[in-house]
């Protein structure tokens, strides 16, 4: 009798708990407003608080708020958080409502991002499939062309990459210099330096401030041992942006290779004014002083380089200190 009563009371309390919980859930959901949640979700998204934005966007979708932008932002938030599985799920749902080039691009990007972690080629192939679909729907989708080319570059299929970059150029997209630069890069990777130079020049023709193209030209001329032209291109980078450390360092390297160590030091010092804790630049400055037999100065810069994590600097310091 007592057992029965205890059992009945327990069952009643448990059922009551479920009913109360259900009622509270229903009431709370009624109170929530789609507009408020959309405002909060967009606010968090713009401020790059992707965890909160994903939370609110997912709630919006569960409340039946069907909007392409919401699905896209949800997926973008989830991609930023590394949750590619859920991102794919929302993108595929969005595809059912409104298949657009942007959604196919995001799906391609999700598979691409997944391939970077898993290193499985099948994800790259899936990414390419969705990116091709994205381009079919919008032949001027620059991002899709760029990403598909990037994937082929990673797969070392440079001719395929060039095909897609050329297709982008054929579509008369805005700012073609970027794609000339990509084509040039694929040639550079294949050590076809003359072809690379040809396309870098075309990229520069379209955009006189294309720093990356100038740096690459400088690098190619250095490989060809044409130090004068190499320096000329790096100087042009300095004219465009004097706060960029790379050209100073590269010109310093040119003089280092020409064994003009004093000039090398002058250029390395300019680079160090911008980035004084750069381990490589400190290392080469130290080495230049060592070549000039100025050991005290050499040790000073090699110590900084060693402190910043340069292993070669550690070895050099050991050699110098053992010798003296």
């Amino acid at each position, binding site marked *: 009798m007592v*057992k029965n009563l*205890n*059992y009945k*009371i*327990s069952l009643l*309390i*448990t059922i009551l*708990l479920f009913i109360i*919980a259900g009622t*509270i*859930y229903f009431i*709370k*959901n009624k109170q*929530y407003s789609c507009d408020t*949640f959309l405002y909060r979700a967009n606010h968090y998204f713009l401020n790059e608080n992707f*965890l909160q934005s*994903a*939370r*609110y966007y*997912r*709630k919006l979708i*569960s409340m039946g708020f069907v909007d392409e932008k919401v699905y896209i932002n949800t997926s973008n938030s*989830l991609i930023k*958080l*590394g*949750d590619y599985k*859920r991102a794919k799920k929302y993108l595929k749902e969005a595809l059912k409502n409104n298949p657009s080039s942007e959604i196919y691009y995001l799906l391609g990007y999700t598979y691409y991002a997944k391939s970077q972690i898993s290193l499985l080629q099948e994800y790259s192939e899936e990414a390419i499939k969705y990116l091709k679909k994205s381009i079919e729907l919008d032949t001027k989708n620059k991002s899709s062309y760029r990403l598909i080319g990037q994937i082929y570059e990673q797969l070392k299929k440079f001719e395929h990459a060039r095909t897609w970059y050329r297709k982008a150029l054929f579509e008369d997209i805005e700012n073609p210099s970027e794609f000339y630069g990509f084509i040039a890069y694929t040639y550079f990777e294949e050590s076809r330096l003359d072809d690379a130079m040809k396309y870098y020049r075309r990229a520069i023709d379209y955009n006189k401030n294309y720093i990356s193209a100038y740096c690459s030209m400088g690098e190619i001329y250095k490989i060809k041992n044409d130090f004068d032209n190499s320096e000329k291109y790096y100087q042009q980078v300095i004219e465009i942006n004097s706060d960029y450390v790379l050209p100073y360092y590269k010109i310093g390297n040119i003089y280092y290779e020409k064994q003009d160590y004093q000039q090398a030091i002058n250029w390395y010092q300019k680079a160090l004014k911008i980035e004084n804790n750069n381990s490589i630049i400190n290392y080469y400055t130290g080495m230049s002083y060592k070549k000039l037999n100025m050991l005290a100065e050499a040790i000073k810069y090699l110590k900084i380089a060693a402190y910043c994590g340069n292993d070669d600097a550690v070895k050099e310091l050991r050699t110098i200190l053992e010798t003296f």
Partner: protein
Amino acid sequence: MFYKNKILFFIVLAIISLILYYFINQQLILIGLLNNSIISISILFISIIVISFVLSTIVSLILSLILKLYRKITNKKIKYNRKFIFWLNFTIISYILSFIIFFESITY
């Protein structure tokens, strides 16, 4: 609750953990091991049991101290079933804890 049928209580608690996992999953992006639903539900289930156990032990100790004090003051002998009191505390605290977790997981 379910004093004579303790297994039934744990089954109910497991169902509650399953429901809580669903709502928590809606709110949070569970990553890594927690992405696996079985692991997450198990962690939730065990956490509720452990926390309820600790809290009910504390409550039972406090109650027994109060009763000892009452006995000393009034000189009356009070019989009570310690196991029953402990189990009652444990089940009530488990339900309250589950409710709190539920309420938090549906709040935006």
